[in-house]
């Protein structure tokens, strides 16, 4: 049977998230938006994002801060009465926004990028060094607020300044290069 479904944006999103086809069955109940711990600060609750996807509002969705405020707590995923993998869809929207360079506020994507740069160069990460870099870049004044913490971390020996470099770094780099090549083709 031929279907004349309206939103191709819906198809795009639902086919790029593992298990995303279930998104069509959303009943707009709001369990996701009600459960989200950062929901109050999102521009749109996850439920609204799904309504906008249905409406084909690609721009609004990819420019929204919502996916970047997702903390991956999976409350929405386990509570959604239609078993829609909401968290996975949030990750998918982030990837689409990065690819389209759609999300204006670079702060959140930047955090991910800086984090991953360390991982790609060393094989390991170190969240504290990253936080420093990130703070100074995006919120130099905010850095003062956590100064005592930073000092504590250093004096208690919890702060590293560079991550450990793994032995098989060359192999890892080849793996990631290949993966990126395949992702671009997919």
């Amino acid at each position, binding site marked *: 049977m031929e279907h004349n479904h309206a939103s191709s944006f819906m198809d795009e999103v639902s086919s790029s998230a*593992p298990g995303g086809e279930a998104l069509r069955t959303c009943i707009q109940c709001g369990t996701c938006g009600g459960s989200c711990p*950062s929901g109050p*600060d999102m521009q749109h609750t996850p439920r609204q994002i799904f309504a906008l996807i249905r409406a084909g509002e690609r721009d609004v969705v990819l420019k929204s801060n919502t*996916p970047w*405020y997702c*903390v*991956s*707590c*999976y*409350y929405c*995923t*386990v509570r959604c009465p239609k078993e829609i993998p909401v*968290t996975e869809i949030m*990750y998918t929207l*982030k*990837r689409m926004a*990065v690819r389209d360079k759609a999300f204006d506020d670079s*702060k959140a*994507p930047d*955090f*991910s*990028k800086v984090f*991953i740069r360390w*991982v790609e160069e060393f*094989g390991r*990460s*170190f*969240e504290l060094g990253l*936080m420093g870099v*990130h*703070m100074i870049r995006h919120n130099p004044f*905010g850095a003062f*607020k*956590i100064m*005592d*913490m930073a000092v*504590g*971390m250093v004096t*208690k*020996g*919890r*702060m*590293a300044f560079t*991550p*450990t470099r*793994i*032995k*098989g770094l060359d*192999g*890892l780099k*080849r*793996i*990631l*290069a*290949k*993966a*990126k090549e*395949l*992702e671009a083709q*997919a």
Partner: protein
Amino acid sequence: MNYTYFPGCSLEKNAACYDASTRAVAAQLGMQLTEVEDWNCCGATEYVSLNLTAAYSLIARNLAQASKNTSTHELVAPCSACYLNLRKCDKVLGQDPKFAGRVVQALAAGGLSYKPGTLHIRHLLDVLYQDVGLEALAAKVTKPLRGLRVAPYYGCMIVRPEFHDGGEDPEAPTSLDEILKALGADVVDYPLKAACCGGHMTQISEATGFDMIHRLVKSAADLNADLIATLCPMCQLNLDGFQGAMNRHFGSHFHMPVLYFTQLIGLAMGMSMREMGIGEEIVDARAALSRIGSEMAAEAAEPKRPRKDDKALPMPAPLKRA
């Protein structure tokens, strides 16, 4: 009890005391931990936000490395984010052959391979609860944590989504409660036990991040907890490391120490504070720990029999889970 051990980046430095206490406790309990050879970062929640294939290939490299230890299929991770990533990757590769094909190709570029389902990926909590068991744990307790009021905090990644195979409810887990009780602690019925610590939110939106930390710390303080027990380095960092900044943001004065559950197990088994890395936390736990062994202020014991004029209505009994 033989396990391949995946410490993860946090346990190298920031959560070194989690690593040390895990290893010490494991040794006492007869668990053999063999560290995954030349493991790499699991990508936390960051890599999937950028590149799906690369994110899963990064994780899959760890699975490939871990499966080189052919003496066991059990892979244990103490960090909830690592645990979730490793487990999710194994599952997705098994379910989606098309996607798995890409990851296999990427691994091959680095001369590695992994067959989904080879490893049984577990969180440390699950291993201690199911494999070691409460009885064996209680048998090792020499200094019970009597008098210490502990809020058991699971966070999100270990109980949700249903990757966990310990049969725990994603909203109301109980294994950590039971372990702490076996150590003799006074366990608080902590309503936010499975709520989120905010992950990297302090970096994206400070106010949002601090609010999440505030909820958790306030609730534990409202219930007169002496400290929070955690099992995830991200949770520990948020609740402990950012507690001061959070206090300043809200004008509050909470002093709620946050320790790893393995540290508490070690103390109860008679290991020293130093061995357990007590003192590395930003919010000092020593005052709280000094309450161990102290007689609890006799709480207004609830009257056993209702008074004659008591009009209170009966409550439904808690649901017994199968």
